[in-house]
């Protein structure tokens, strides 16, 4: 539905040039919710703004619904933009228009007749839960309600694609969830393809099917969301995941941790369980079969879409050959083991 081919964006020329986006390919399938995640300044905003050519890419081609946007003239591009909805971090509603008139705006721009506008706006207000707010002005609405208006407005022209530029970044966590639910709902009901950019893992976890990780203007990792949350393949991906899961050993332990094992140390490990491993009582078996003590420092279970992810930070306590054996045991049981460091016994 959306294909970016070798897209890049450079601002300025010569030695002062800023490469906001390095040559990047991206494909979003029909009906998919694709999330691009990255830190601020990573180029994700440039990327999404290139899709509807709010930003002209320096190189590359863009296809939306089979049409090459980069080859279109001004007028044709405006026509094509009617089929691409977009919502923004700061909503960008017209303060001078009521909720109803804001949602009607794209239809007015398309030259839709007044009567038809009325018929088309009302169902959108129902869909976004704004029926009772149609005569209000944006200043009278909360942030979440404003974004609902923006979503209704973006859907008014019956687009095939919805672009979400940090759509929940200005909202509190609860409102974020309700907006995400709405987007998910729209995706299911209307079969709308959604490309979103965000810096929040929560957004990716809640609604995305696929995720792309962007850093330094490059797409460094791309995966199904379930895979990304269980086994990110890049260091940045792991950092994002760990920051999101907030699963790090206690600071006091980190301070004592050494990189290499010594004669009297035992390992601190981070374990990630997926699939069958989640429901298997591995730790008690480990203790029994390898004869080591396991001290659990932190643990949590996350459900990511239909998959369950168990996470744990633990010390394996025992003689070195036993702990080595325990590590081998864990690795053989379909779970990811990362040795974070080693701490002195009885320290």
């Amino acid at each position: 539905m959306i294909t970016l081919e070798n897209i890049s964006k450079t601002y300025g020329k010569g030695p002062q040039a800023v490469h906001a986006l390095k040559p990047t390919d991206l494909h979003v399938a029909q009906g998919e919710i694709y999330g691009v995640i990255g830190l601020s300044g990573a180029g994700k905003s440039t990327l999404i703004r290139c899709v509807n050519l709010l930003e002209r890419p320096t190189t590359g081609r863009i296809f939306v619904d089979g049409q090459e946007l980069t080859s279109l003239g001004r007028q044709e591009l405006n026509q094509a933009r009617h089929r691409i909805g977009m919502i923004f971090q700061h909503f960008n509603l017209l303060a001078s228009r009521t909720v109803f008139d804001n949602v009607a705006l794209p239809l007015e721009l398309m030259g839709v007749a007044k009567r038809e506008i009325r018929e088309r706006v009302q169902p959108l207000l129902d869909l976004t839960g704004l029926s009772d707010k149609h005569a209000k002005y944006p200043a009278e609405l909360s942030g979440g309600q404003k974004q609902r208006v923006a979503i209704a407005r973006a859907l008014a022209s019956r687009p095939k694609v919805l672009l979400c530029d940090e759509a929940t970044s200005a909202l509190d966590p609860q409102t974020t969830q309700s907006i995400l639910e709405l987007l998910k709902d729209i995706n299911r009901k209307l079969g709308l393809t959604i490309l979103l950019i965000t810096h929040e893992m929560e957004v990716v976890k809640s609604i995305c099917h696929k995720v792309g990780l962007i850093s330094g203007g490059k797409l460094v990792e791309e995966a199904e969301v379930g895979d990304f949350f269980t086994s990110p393949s890049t260091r940045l991906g792991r950092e994002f995941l760990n920051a999101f899961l907030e699963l790090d050993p206690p600071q006091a332990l980190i301070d004592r941790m050494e990189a290499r094992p010594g004669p009297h140390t035992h390992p601190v490990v981070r374990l990630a369980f997926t699939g069958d491993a989640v429901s298997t009582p591995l730790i008690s078996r480990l203790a029994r079969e390898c004869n080591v003590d396991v001290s659990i420092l932190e643990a949590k279970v996350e459900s990511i879409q239909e998959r369950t992810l168990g996470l744990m930070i633990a010390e394996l306590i025992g003689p070195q050959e036993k702990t080595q054996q325990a590590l081998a045991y864990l690795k053989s049981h379909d779970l990811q083991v990362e040795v974070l460091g080693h701490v002195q016994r009885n320290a």
Partner: protein
Amino acid sequence: MSSAMLELILMATLDTLYMVGVSGLVAAALGVPLGVLLYVTRPRQILAMPTLNTALGMITNIGRSIPFIILMVAIIPFTRFIVGSSIGTNAAIVPLTLAAIPFVARLVEGALNEVPPGLVEAAQSMGATPYQIITKVLLPEARGGIITGLTITAVTLVSYSAMAGAVGGGGLGDLGIRYGYNRFNPVVMLITVAILVVMVQGFQSLGDALVRKADHK
């Protein structure tokens, strides 16, 4: 005070309102589009035309930098060409309008500059043409600011119109100078000033009320 004097004052008041009204309307009709043009032709704007923008900006600045009293006498031939005379109320309208156009244009440009760029971007993402962006986004969103600008213009025109009295323009300024100053009639002078004060207050209150109605921020 004689009834003749009262009639004179009434006529002068109507003359002033007439001058301010006509020059204000014409200046708005020409100044608002000029202000829009100044804004949309800026670099990186929806109709970016840097050369035109610089040229328009220069003309506007020249217009604004000429003191009104000098503008008035400097364009007498032009005024005569337009209204057939260089004295009288109609003759005063020409320089008043000419002075007000760049004034309005800069205020409108400033009001448009207050519209969040995100709104223009949103409209672009909906496939709006530049003309649609101007008429459906920029002007409605800047309505409050534009009305504020026009109010300031009206108030400025009231004081300029009094200056026009100095060269035989008619109106309250003319009356104040001829009767109040030249004939040492402090009562006429005071009445003139009082009427001007009320007029300015009136314009300001009207403008404020319109802004309140236009603004939903």
